[in-house]
C-alpha cells in the first residue's frame, strides 16, 4: 500500500517532503520551537512559499528519511504507520502550491500516529495547535485561493468559519470544530483527509487499530483464517474453531473415560510423550481423524449413543476439503506411531 502511494504521489511530493522532514525533526525534539517556527512562517507566507517551491529534488531520499522517524516511533507500530502515512500523501498532493496552512498537515498526521502509539506526546502536541477538518476537492481549492489572498489574522477567523460551513462529512467530525479555536495566532491546521482530529475520533481510531492488531494475531493462530477477509468472516471462523476445540475436548475425555477405567494417566515415559506433544496438531484437520477412528475401536463397552452426537456434530462443521487432508493425516499418524 505504501509503495503504491509512493509511486503515485512521488511526483507531487516535491515541496512537502522537506517540510515533512523538517517538521518531523521539530516535533520529535522541541515542541515549543515548532510553535515558534510555525508562527514565524505564518507571518512570512511568502518566504514559506519560496521554501516550499524550492525543494524539488530527491523525493526518494526524503521519503526514506521521513520513513525512519516513523519507524522510530515504536515497534508495535508496524502496520499502523502504513495506515497513517497513506492519507497524508494524498493530502499533500492536494496542497502542493498551498500556503503555510498546509505545512501543519504532516505534523498533524504525526500527531495522529503518535496518538496511536504514544498518547502522551500526541495530547501535548494537539493542545498547541488547532486541528480542523479537511474537506473535499473543490472546497479545498476554493479555500486555497481565498487563503492565499487574505492575511493571517483574518484568515484564521474566516477559514474557521468556512470549515464549519463546508465540511459536512459526518456529524461526528463537524461536532467540535468551532469550539477548538486556536490560542496561538496562526493558521488553522488540516487534519488527515476526511477525518477529524478531535479526541473522540482519535481515540476511536486507536481502538480500532488495537482491534485490528488483535485480529491479526488471531488470524495467525486460527487455521484457515487467511482466506477470509473482514471482521465478520474472521469472527465466524474463530467461533467455529473454538467450538470445534471444545467439542474435541469433550470427545477426547469421553474416549479416555472409555479406554481408561482406572483413570490413571499412564505417563511412564515422559520423553516419548514429548514427541507427541510437538507433532500433534490441534487443528480442524485432525478432528476429522478422530471421527473415523472411533468406530474402528472394538474395545470394551463403547457408549455409542453418547458418542454419536459428538460424531455427527463434528462432521458437519468441516468443509469437504478437509476430508482428503484428514485421510492423509490419519495414515501418517498411524504409521508414525512409535512406542
Amino acid at each position, binding site marked *: 500500500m505504501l509503495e503504491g502511494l509512493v509511486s503515485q504521489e512521488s511526483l507531487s511530493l516535491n515541496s512537502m517532503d522537506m517540510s515533512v522532514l523538517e517538521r518531523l525533526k521539530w516535533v520529535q525534539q522541541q515542541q515549543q520551537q515548532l510553535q515558534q517556527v510555525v508562527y514565524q512562517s505564518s507571518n512570512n507566507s511568502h518566504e514559506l512559499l519560496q521554501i516550499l517551491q524550492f525543494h524539488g529534488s530527491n523525493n526518494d531520499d526524503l521519503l526514506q528519511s521521513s520513513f525512519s522517524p516513523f519507524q522510530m516511533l515504536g515497534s508495535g507500530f508496524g502496520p499502523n504507520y502504513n495506515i497513517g502515512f497513506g492519507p497524508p500523501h494524498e493530502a499533500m498532493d492536494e496542497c502542493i502550491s498551498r500556503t503555510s496552512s498546509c505545512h501543519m498537515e504532516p505534523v498533524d498526521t504525526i500527531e495522529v500516529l503518535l496518538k496511536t502509539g504514544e498518547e502522551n506526546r500526541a495530547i501535548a502536541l494537539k493542545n498547541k495547535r488547532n486541528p480542523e477538518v479537511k474537506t473535499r476537492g473543490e472546497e479545498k481549492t476554493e479555500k486555497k485561493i481565498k487563503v492565499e489572498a487574505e492575511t493571517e489574522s483574518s484568515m484564521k477567523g474566516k477559514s474557521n468559519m468556512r470549515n464549519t460551513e463546508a465540511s459536512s462529512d459526518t456529524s461526528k467530525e463537524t461536532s467540535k470544530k468551532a469550539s477548538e479555536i486556536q490560542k496561538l495566532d496562526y493558521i488553522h491546521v488540516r487534519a488527515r483527509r476526511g477525518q477529524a482530529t478531535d479526541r473522540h475520533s482519535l481515540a476511536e481510531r486507536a*481502538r480500532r487499530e*488495537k*482491534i485490528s492488531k*488483535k*485480529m491479526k*494475531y*488471531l488470524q*495467525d*493462530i*486460527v487455521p484457515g483464517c487467511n482466506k477470509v477477509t*473482514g*471482521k*465478520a468472516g474472521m*469472527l*465466524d471462523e*474463530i*467461533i467455529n*474453531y*473454538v*467450538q470445534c*476445540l*471444545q467439542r*474435541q*475436548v*469433550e470427545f*477426547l*475425555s*469421553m*474416549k*479416555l*473415560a*472409555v*479406554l*481408561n*477405567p*482406572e*483413570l*490413571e*494417566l*499412564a*505417563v511412564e515415559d*515422559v520423553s*516419548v*510423550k*514429548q514427541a*507427541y*506433544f*510437538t507433532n*500433534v496438531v*490441534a487443528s480442524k484437520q*485432525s478432528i476429522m481423524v*478422530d471421527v473415523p477412528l472411533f468406530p474402528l*475401536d472394538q*474395545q470394551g*463397552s463403547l*457408549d455409542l449413543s*453418547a458418542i454419536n452426537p459428538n460424531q455427527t456434530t463434528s462432521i458437519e462443521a468441516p468443509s469437504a476439503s478437509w476430508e482428503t487432508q484428514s485421510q492423509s493425516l490419519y495414515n501418517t*499418524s498411524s504409521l508414525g*506411531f512409535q*512406542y
Partner: protein
Amino acid sequence: MQPTSSMNEEFLKKWQMGLQIFHPSIDNTSVHERKKAIKLSADVAMASLRKGTTCWSRALIEKTATEDNFLVRQMLSGIKAEALINKKLPKRTVCHRKIVRRSKKILRRKSKSASEEAAAKAKRLVKRRTQGLRNVVPGGELMSNDVLLLQETLDYIVSLQTQVNVMRSIVDAAEAEIER
C-alpha cells in the same frame, strides 16, 4: 503463539494431580461420571495454568465450581491454587432486550441511504458475531469491550490447543497400550 511443550507438561501435571483426587471414588462409576471427572479436572488444570490473570480462567473455574464445588475445591487445593476460586469477576451487565430493540428501531428509521445501510448491516453482522463469541468463550459476557474479548479469545484458544494436544497424546498412548 503456539502452545509450548512446557505448557503441555504443566497442564499434564496439573491434570494428573486433579484426577488423583477422583481415584478413590471411581470404582463403580459409569462412563459418564468418569468422563465428567476427566473433563472437569482438565478444565480446572487448564484454567489454573493462567493463575487467575485472565478473565476466562476465572469464569471457567466458577462454572466448574457450580457443577461440583467440593471436588473443584479439592482439586484446586491439590494443585495448590486455592486462591483462584475466590477471585472476583466483573459484574454481569444485564441488558433488557426489549428496550434495546425498540431504541434500535427508532434509530434505524432515521438513516436510509444506501451506503449507510450497507455499513449498518456490516456492523450488525459484526455485532452478532461478537455476541456469538461471547457465548462461546467462558466469561465472555463479562467483558465489556471488544479488545479485551479478542485478547481473552486468543489466550483461550492457545490453552484449548494445549489441552487438546495433551489429551490426544494420552489417548493415543492409551490406545497403543491396549493394542499391545
